[in-house]
């Protein structure tokens, strides 16, 4: 009796994340999946019910036409590809910025480390929307950046950054950078300094020791950071909507248009389900490879 108590507590503790995932992830997803198999109608809700009672007979109608439609339309395919491209390029940009940043912070003294990490996190204390709007006022044709460069005489006419893909990259890299910095920093700051000394002792210059020991050992942090930014960036809506132009259609905006402009919930849901499939397959592959190499 006494022994089973902590066991019960531990089980309850494990149930918490599963419960969370079931209520806040699995159920909404099942709803979206259900809607994607329905067909559109006028009214509230704007889709046909999936099942109906005919006397004592339960009839379920699953409509796959939405998926056929989405897969057959070039617009959607293009939006998927654009999202993947934007996510891939901005992930690469963030990695290039975040790794040296995390490495620099990790090699500081413990006292200044926590202060620097605090500085990385501090933008989160204001709303993301406000920060994106702030970027609009910086990047506008008559914005801060352009007036500064014009006044300094570096450029003679304003740079057109606002409503371009460049603005999207700036916004996304700015918004998501901490998610890349933190896992890499956590990994690097926990690394064993004597391993570097061992590499140096065995003939490595500082640079060689970095590439042969520090970097390979930090790959887990890099992978975690990439996953943490790549996945949400694919579905990102706010930044491309506010900073981007009409020519860069990402999937998040496509879903928004289907839901709210076209009020075609079934098609919007089908786009969402396909997006999830696109994202889940590489993650599962990655996870199985990771668990195999760590064995």
């Amino acid at each position, binding site marked *: 009796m006494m022994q089973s108590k902590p066991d019960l507590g531990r089980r309850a503790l494990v149930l918490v994340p599963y419960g969370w995932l079931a209520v806040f992830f699995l159920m909404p997803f099942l709803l979206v999946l259900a809607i994607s198999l329905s067909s559109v109608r006028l009214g509230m809700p704007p889709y046909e019910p999936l099942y109906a009672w005919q006397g004592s007979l339960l009839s379920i109608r699953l409509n796959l036409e939405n998926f056929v439609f989405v897969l057959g339309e070039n617009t959607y395919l293009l939006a998927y590809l654009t999202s993947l491209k934007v996510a891939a390029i901005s992930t690469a940009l963030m990695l290039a910025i975040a790794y040296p940043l995390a490495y620099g912070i990790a090699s500081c003294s413990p006292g200044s480390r926590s202060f620097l990490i605090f500085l990385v996190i501090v933008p989160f204390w204001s709303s993301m929307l406000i920060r994106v709007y702030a970027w609009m006022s910086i990047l506008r044709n008559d914005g801060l950046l352009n007036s500064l460069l014009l006044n300094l005489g570096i450029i003679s006419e304003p740079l057109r950054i606002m409503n371009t893909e460049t603005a999207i990259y700036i916004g996304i890299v700015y918004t998501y950078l901490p998610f890349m910095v933190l896992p890499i920093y956590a990994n690097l700051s926990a690394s*064993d300094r*004597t*391993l570097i*000394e*061992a*590499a*140096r*002792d*065995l*003939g*490595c*210059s500082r640079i*060689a020791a970095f590439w*042969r*020991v520090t970097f*390979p*050992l930090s790959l887990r942090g890099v992978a975690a950071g990439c996953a943490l930014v790549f996945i949400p960036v694919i579905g990102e809506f706010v930044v491309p909507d506010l900073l981007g132009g009409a020519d860069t259609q990402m999937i998040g905006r496509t879903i928004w248009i289907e839901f709210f402009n076209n009020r075609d919930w079934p098609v919007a849901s089908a786009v969402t389900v396909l997006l999830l499939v696109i994202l889940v397959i590489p993650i599962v592959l990655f996870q199985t490879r990771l668990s195999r190499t760590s064995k």
Partner: protein
Amino acid sequence: MLQSYVSIENLSKSFGLFSAVDDVSIGIGKGEFFSLLGPSGCGKSTLLRMIAGFETPTSGVVRLDGDEVTDVPAHRRPTNMMFQSYALFPHLSVGKNIAFGLQQDRLASGEIRQRVSEVAEKLQLTALLDRKPQQLSGGQRQRVALARALVKRPKVLLLDEPLGALDKNLRTETQHELVRLQRELGLTFIIVTHDQHEAMTVSSRIAIMRQGKVLQIGSPAEVYETPVSRYVAKFLGEANVFEGGSARRSGNELKIESAEAGGSVLATASDHISTNGRYWVSVRPERVELSKQGTGLEGVIEQFSYAGAGRHYRVRLKSGATLDARRVNSGAQDDLSVGDTVFASWMPQAARLLAD
């Protein structure tokens, strides 16, 4: 100190106000198994790290095989280090760990393979080459760390508490293994340890360090038999130390009155120590003879402990001081027990006079 293979000259290292190594000079010959021995914080590891090139000396010079290397970075020194934590690369297999240094030197892959398999055979690692360090036992990891350093054929192998993480039996075994390897390869080993038994077992010579300074350098027998100070005498095993008073000389023997011991004790006059100032008499417990009748310092056995190979007695002398004595466990019946009145004595040669 002329023609030393490793020559440490007036080496000092301070961290802020703290002086970790303070004006140390040591000469180590080629093929020596040299120990830096001392309690933690005595500067022995800092000294080793300066030889390896991980710390820059505040002042002084390090020479290896005649060349000054004081400012040569670690990766260009002909030394290799075996780390206390072993510092094996967790992302590489045992084979790749061992080959790491050779690959860095850009040797041909055929030669790398040959040298790795050679050293692996010597250290019984051949069957483990494809494993990851995490899959090895402590003893196996220790051998990989040793192999990784040895495969580079360093002029000097530096070992920082190499056996600290092993259990006692394996440690004794490995000490003999290290000595055998060192003789076979003819390499110069410098080992850092806080374990006096380990230093005695493996070394050709020992430097005893305390608070950044070297107190004494000598062979295990020299430092044990003729310690230069009370500190060294007590650090290397046990010692009974009594302050000496007036001394009377007859021939080569000294008869010393000691108020602390509560009587007169014997010593030889061969120690070059003036008995006019303060001085001390030191005797090892195993040189003390206890008998129920006779002459010597009178006391009562206060404690007895049976330690397998020996029997330890703690005697409370009449003066109030304690005296430790040890008898070899020869299997004979013990005639002494707690509470017995005994007389402690020793041969004059057993005692050492110390000025500090």
